[in-house]
């Protein structure tokens, strides 16, 4: 089961994310801020991370930058939730690979579609690599 780490301090968001992602068949862990999330990532990397930006203790921006610095081998995608009008975050996020925006109000369809697409490409890649080895 793929594990998704959700980082948000607002219960109305975490409840929605948790319910819909569990329904879509994911194992969901929710944490209330960047600091707890960073500890969780360093202990065991999730298969994907969804994070808010505005949070107490450690913001989503600091979390992403810390992961970049302390865990450069990251393979899992990061989804950053931001409001549609808020463009100021486009700058720092552009420097981080494998990071995508989710626009608030959040579309759980869009998120589950993005996750499904992501995991199916990973599966396809793994199959291709295996095939290559077998033929080689």
């Amino acid at each position, binding site marked *: 089961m793929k594990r998704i780490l959700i980082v948000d301090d607002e219960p*109305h968001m975490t*409840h*929605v994310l948790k*319910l*819909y992602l*569990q329904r879509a068949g994911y194992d969901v862990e929710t944490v209330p801020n960047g600091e707890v999330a960073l500890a969780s990532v360093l202990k065991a990397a999730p298969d994907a991370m969804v994070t808010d930006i505005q949070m107490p203790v450690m913001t989503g921006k600091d979390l992403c930058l810390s992961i970049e610095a302390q865990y450069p081998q990251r393979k899992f995608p990061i989804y950053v939730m931001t409001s*549609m009008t808020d463009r100021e975050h486009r700058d720092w996020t552009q420097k981080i690979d494998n990071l995508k925006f989710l*626009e*608030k*109000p*959040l*579309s*759980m*369809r*869009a998120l589950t*579609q993005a996750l499904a697409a992501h995991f199916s490409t990973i599966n396809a890649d793994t199959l291709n690599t295996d095939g290559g080895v077998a033929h080689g």
Partner: protein
Amino acid sequence: MANPIFEQIDFKRVHRWLNRAIGAEIDFMVFDKDGNAVWDNANKHASEIGQVIAKTGNPLQGMHRHDLSANKTALYQSLGFIGDGCIGWVAVIVDYFKKNDAPVKIDQIAEVLDDVVAGIFDEYKHKADLEMMTDELGARYEELHLVYAVDSHVQAHSGENAQVFQSLLQSTTEHLNVDVVAFVRPSKDVCQYATNLSQEIHNLDLVLIETRGDLYRFIQASSETIVMNAEDDPRRAYIFTDMPYKVIGCPVLTDGKVDALVVLLNHQNKPDFTNSDRKLAEVLANQLSSLSNTYQLLESMHEFNQQLARTLIEAVEAKDPYTRGHSERVHHLSMEIGKAMGLPPEELEDLHWGSLLHDVGKIGIPDAVLCKPSRLTKDEYTFIMVHPERSYEILRHVKHLDKAILGARHHQEMYDGKGYPHGLKGERIPLHGRIIAVADTYDSITSSRAYRAGRSHEVAMKEIERVAGTQLDPAIVEIFKKMVAVEPEWLKHFNIKREKLAA
């Protein structure tokens, strides 16, 4: 499927509490409404009791009893109801002859069990409520997301109505993961659609035509959204005959009447359309409806403006039949020059009105002067020279034409400053005035007047080149020369006379 709400309740803690309340270790189990064990303290009787519960059917209030053996009895009780459904059961096992325990009284257990049931029910209810609200909140986010997305599409493509619709439909096919989304308005012969095909649809045109027929009439009659998933849906007999797609059709209302449809189509291999799909389709239909109404309003305003302008031009041309078509031609040529110069859309809009209405001031010139077939006296010519200022005086009442007026007011200025009304020179002449001047000069030479027949394109070009730099802006003349060098379509359309080329 396991009930996710039970998984969130800490039954181990409930069991501890139960033991303390009774004063002895007691076997404790929780079952769902069908008798499947949800939690138990690892005792071997859970499945037997579960089967008994499954057979109990409609659970009554209070405690039930089932003897497991001569000295063991299970006591079980319903957890209560939410709506029409029982949420589950709890059970304990009473062992009358456990050696070190004093036998516990059934009455006491019944009381404690009542408390346990009430506690679990409250917690279950809270969690179920929370889940329902969360579910609803997620659905609302989804709708808001769609509304915001529509809004940002509209802002991104402002002024390009067809594109807004198209990009909206396209993003909807992706967002809702459907094969086809179409906006159909039969009365205006509109059928705009976007696809995100999971499989080919060979006869898509036919399918879309079908939506304008019976599907439209059906929804028009019912004013309600229709959802058809099943292939053997009886309504298919008269809607979408022989078309096996899953369908959502949403009415789009204008003034309370259905005048368009939003149609979503999926191949049969896709999952059924859900309630959430239906809601989102309705949100989209509402958004498209208000957009489309706005566009219709804009269009009719635009039409009204055009007709009003046409009326003004008719008034000028009625005075001088020889100038018939002059405004149209100068307008057309000015716009061609403006486009060739790459003017932005809002400037082209101003040039549009300025060039179309540039001669409106001629209304103020006496007929005797305007239509005089012979040479004008100096005084008579003064009347002519007043007309651009007159155009300004007439048009200044229309605020929308603020900037457009400049082109009309200054189309008789000359590049060397010897023109009228203000004798402006070079770049100080508003750009639109310089553009209209080139178009106006060309048309004056090539069209017939009261005192002479129209001359050829070649004569006009020669004359224009001659006065480039004195009367006309040489840069614009250059652009005009390049434009005519490719023999544009309007040369034929306006019946411009041509010199016979040497064979």
